[in-house]
């Protein structure tokens, strides 16, 4: 009988055989490698948020507002407190005594932890119930009486700045309107105006990238455990930036930072949703202080969808122009809807994130964009959902506009792109809005995608179908991202430089532990970061443990979002590995009785140049480094190092995507037939993991393009607060025979291993591609030139009949 431990290549970590998490056939370095972390997950032995159990732990639930905007006259908690299983009920005035009624957001705004005098969005947090079990906590919610006076709600971002709009943030001194942050702009307006004045053709569209939600399968949650005797606060919380969270909690709660420990175990997906600090977290901490026991708070799906970090919600008035058959200019005036509190996740000096990368992959002569942010009576947020700080919105805008312009020019959207791309000989390339793109070969990637798709054949098929009354659409997008924030001279969050640390210790046996500040939510860090060390030191990745998720045991850094892990944390791991390698060289010189400068490195060993037989493996060197040997002055024992990586620039991954859809002319239903994705993310550490990331991001793109939206009724009620109405794609909405992936490799010139990051690319590139495909079908059949996403059947049908619904 074939058992797993005796079947080559089939040993995903076997306690009875090799080492837990050991993967057979692992490459010593980069290459296809099955994941080490699978060993626990396929056995159901992951350790997620709701799996945390502490002695004496209490449970909790949050009472939420049924109104989008209302004053709170009174809250009566007496009946809830009388419930036999209720330990405490916390409301805003209790938090005031702890100084926790308001918390700072990631964007220097404030957010109510629990609503005090007023609620400002539907399902805002109002009261926090702590009970001995979760069912009882929910029972007690129904016993709390809140007396509200309903106020008119601001739901439409365009009306937020009307003179008669109700003032949402009357809590803020000096706030007289609903402007959340001042007008922010990039690009030279005068140049842009001149380019437009000289243009042949101008396309004008109002483009809405609607509110969606990252929606990880595991919701958010926390167990807070404050030890009243020692003042030690242990926080169990799956979040994407544990070190930054610790600093924020130290600021919010006024607790000494060294007394706070954040433990992130396994995280069931993040996608940007687990970057911010949420009111529920602060409630759990306050609850633990009040109740004197550990308090668990786990949000349900409705709470996750209706109150935690949403994404997008950018309304963009846009103009793009061409001259001589090339795209020459772009002008964008955007409104960002941040909801009731500005907790948008951005690098601090960039209130609109990296939106100004909006010129995309094109060599434009002029561009100008401006963004103003408004408050509305909607859930707060604006997180970077699988996105490098609003790059998704920028790519969405530019790729929709290129198609719009191609229609006005009556030219093929591929030809227009090919004529307008930044050429490979132009890199490094400074864009019209000030970005310095590191490297690329856009024509090559586009050509590969066209070949894979048989683009000309598809266009012929489209014509044949059209003759039979069938609607088929071919969509193109070509994206350039800027990821891996970022250089400390430019970028910070709340004053914290966006760098990441790494510590590497090679043990006497030659086995290693690398500690990192990035935080996996499923990206496979335990495998790929081990592969980076393996590549640099020649140790099997099976012998390298990647430690993360414990602020007491890992170096400081800003975490995992914005495709930062490989560009920043991966850089740190490569650098620290090289430091260890350099230190190993010193030991090798002693061992080999040679001069360090006379040694040469090959993967896994130092040897004497010109005499390759005389060498020492990294294992032997490690043993030597810890042995009781006399060492010369200046050389410390042990084989370890640490590093903080400050990236010199962002990295600029790019890709060419083609979508093929069929549209039912009778019902407007879109069928996703094929999707071709050529990605260039520089050097690929583990192709298996990279392709997995691309698959996942593409499906999130399908969701945004075809079915996902967080919408509100006129009163501000969230209409998509459950999986009944917030629709994630199933396997059936994806191309039946799978995605078609291709790659080109343009190594990043400034990154230690030439990698650029890939996690977000597919989710950035695919929404405009699919939207363009749907419109392409309608354009060729009926001359329809534009519709917004999501392409629900009803909306497609309306567009098909010339009644595309404009943004609210």
């Amino acid at each position, binding site marked *: 009988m074939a058992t797993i431990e005796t079947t080559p290549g089939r040993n995903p970590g076997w306690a009875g055989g090799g080492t837990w998490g050991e993967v057979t056939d692992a490459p010593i370095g980069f290459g296809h490698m099955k994941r080490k972390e699978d060993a626990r997950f396929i056995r159901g032995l992951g350790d997620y948020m709701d799996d945390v159990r502490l002695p004496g732990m209490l449970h909790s639930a949050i009472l939420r507002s049924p109104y989008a905007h209302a004053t709170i006259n009174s809250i009566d908690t007496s009946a809830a407190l009388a419930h036999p299983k209720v330990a405490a009920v916390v409301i805003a005035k209790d938090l005031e005594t702890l100084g926790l009624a308001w918390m700072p957001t990631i964007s220097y705004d404030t957010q109510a932890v629990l609503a005090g005098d007023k609620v400002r969005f539907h399902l805002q947090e109002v009261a926090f119930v702590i009970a001995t079990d979760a069912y009882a906590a929910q029972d007690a919610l129904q016993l709390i009486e809140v007396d509200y006076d309903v106020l008119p709600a601001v739901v439409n971002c365009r009306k937020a700045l009307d003179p008669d709009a109700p003032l949402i943030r009357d809590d803020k001194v000096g706030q007289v309107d609903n402007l959340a942050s001042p007008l922010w702009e990039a690009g030279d307006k005068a140049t842009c105006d001149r380019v437009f004045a000289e243009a042949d053709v101008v396309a004008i569209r109002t483009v809405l990238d609607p509110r969606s939600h990252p929606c990880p399968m595991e919701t958010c949650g926390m167990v807070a455990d404050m030890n009243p005797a020692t003042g030690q606060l242990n926080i169990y919380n799956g979040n994407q930036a544990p070190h930054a969270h610790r600093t924020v909690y130290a600021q919010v709660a006024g607790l000494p930072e060294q007394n706070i420990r954040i433990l992130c175990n396994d995280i069931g997906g993040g996608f940007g949703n687990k970057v911010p600090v949420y009111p529920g977290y602060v409630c759990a901490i306050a609850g633990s202080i009040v109740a004197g026991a550990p308090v668990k708070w786990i949000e349900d799906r409705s709470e996750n969808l209706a109150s935690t970090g949403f994404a997008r919600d950018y309304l963009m008035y846009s103009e793009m122009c061409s001259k001589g058959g090339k795209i020459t200019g772009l002008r964008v005036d955007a409104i960002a809807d941040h909801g009731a509190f500005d907790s948008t996740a951005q690098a601090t000096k960039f209130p609109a994130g990296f939106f100004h990368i909006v010129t995309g992959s094109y060599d434009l002569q002029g561009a100008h964009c401006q963004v103003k942010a408004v408050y509305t009576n909607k859930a707060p947020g604006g997180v970077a959902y699988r996105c490098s700080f609003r790059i998704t919105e920028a790519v969405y805008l530019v790729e929709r506009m290129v198609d719009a312009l191609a229609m006005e020019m009556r030219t093929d959207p591929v030809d227009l792109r090919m004529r307008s791309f930044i050429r490979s000989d132009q890199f490094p390339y400074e864009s019209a809005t000030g970005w310095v793109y590191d490297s690329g070969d856009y024509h090559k990637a586009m050509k590969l995608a066209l070949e894979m798709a048989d683009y000309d054949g598809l266009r012929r098929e489209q014509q044949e179908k059209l003759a039979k009354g069938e609607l088929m659409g071919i969509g193109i997008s070509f994206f350039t991202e800027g990821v891996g924030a970022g250089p400390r001279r430019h970028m910070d969050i709340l004053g914290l430089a966006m760098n990441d640390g790494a510590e590497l210790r090679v043990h006497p046996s030659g086995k290693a532990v690398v500690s990192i500040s990035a935080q996996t939510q499923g990206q496979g860090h335990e495998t790929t970061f081990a592969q980076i060390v393996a590549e640099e030191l020649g140790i099997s990745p099976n012998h390298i443990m990647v430690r993360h998720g414990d602020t007491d045991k890992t170096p400081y850094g800003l975490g995992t979002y914005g495709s930062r892990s490989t560009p920043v944390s991966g850089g740190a791991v490569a650098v620290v590995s090289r430091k260890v390698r350099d230190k190993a060289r010193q030991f090798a010189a002693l061992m080999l009785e040679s001069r360090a400068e006379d040694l040469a490195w090959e993967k896994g060993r130092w040897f004497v140049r010109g005499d390759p037989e005389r060498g020492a493996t990294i294992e032997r060197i490690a043993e030597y480094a810890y042995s009781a040997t006399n060492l010369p002055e200046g050389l410390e024992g042990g084989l370890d190092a640490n590093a903080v990586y400050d990236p010199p620039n962002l990295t600029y991954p790019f890709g060419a995507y083609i979508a093929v859809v069929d549209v039912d002319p009778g019902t407007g239903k879109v069928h996703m037939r094929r999707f071709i994705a050529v990605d260039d993310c520089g050097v690929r550490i583990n192709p298996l993991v990279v392709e997995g990331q691309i698959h996942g991001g593409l499906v999130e793109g399908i969701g945004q393009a075809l079915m996902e939206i967080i*919408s509100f009724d006129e009163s501000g009620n969230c209409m998509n607060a459950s999986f009944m109405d917030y629709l994630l794609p*199933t396997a059936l909405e994806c191309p039946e025979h799978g995605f078609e992936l291709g790659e080109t490799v343009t190594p990043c010139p400034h990154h230690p291993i030439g990698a650029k990051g890939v996690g977000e690319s597919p989710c950035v590139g695919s929404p405009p591609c699919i939207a363009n495909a749907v419109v392409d079908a309608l354009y060729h059949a009926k001359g329809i030139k534009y519709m917004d996403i999501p392409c629900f059947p*009803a909306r497609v049908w309306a567009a098909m009949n010339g009644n595309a619904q404009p943004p609210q």
Partner: protein
Amino acid sequence: MQTPAPCEYSRATSVDDAIAQLQALGGNARILAGGYSLIPMMKLRLANPGHVIDINPLESELNYIRQEGNEIRIGALTRHVNMLESDLLSQVFPHIFREAEAVLADPVVRNRGTMGGSLCQSDPAEDLSGVVVALKGEAVLRGPGGAERVVGMEEFHLGPYMTSVQPTEMLIEVRIPTHSGFGGAHEKVERRAGDFAIVAASAALAIEGGRITFAGVACSAVGPTTLHIERAEKALVGQAPSEDLFAQCGQMAAADCSPNSDGRGPADYKRHVAGVLTTRALSRAAATAVS
């Protein structure tokens, strides 16, 4: 996760025992079968029964699909998967059951969800109800003392989430008349696989000697209950099947339905789709019937 409010639980040992329990509990109890409608409602605390009576132990009594004379009888506890895979149903009513069941929720729900649960939920967007309405099925309700009454679907479905099943009654069986020369089809447009219909249309035809001898047309999600398109049925019976005729029936369905605008689409869209799907379903039903 959201959780149900406190409630009591008991199991039924027979249909009559379940009814006796309903009687004893005086209107505070609900019958619990597959659970895929009732339990989510309880978790959201939209349904708060004080007591649930589990009838899953009644498989042998209530899970069956059998032919008796000119009728097919389907027990209330027959699971969706049983109807999806029933050779008898696909033989007697080709395509219509299988097509509706194949798009009803998802395979895991279909493993447990039941005929009785689907009908008693009285969700106007539900697929199986459309099939039963189109086939002019009847519901057998049993009450205290074994008293049974048989009601048509118009009488059974009173409105959204409302049926004529009395607090001490239980749906035990659905009876559907058979026809020779039968063909059926179910057409659905949804936002995503597993979602309730934006609009669905079920068509049932019997064609003999080139004439339509029986016609049933039902549209889902375009009214307070699954709608019977009577005008279309009258127009069909006695006629020779033709695409023109089916297109006219589609127009009747579009005209006679009464959809609401909601997150799935505006009323005018749903009206249009009701027409398109009715025409398509009739056309395919006719093709099956004459083949």
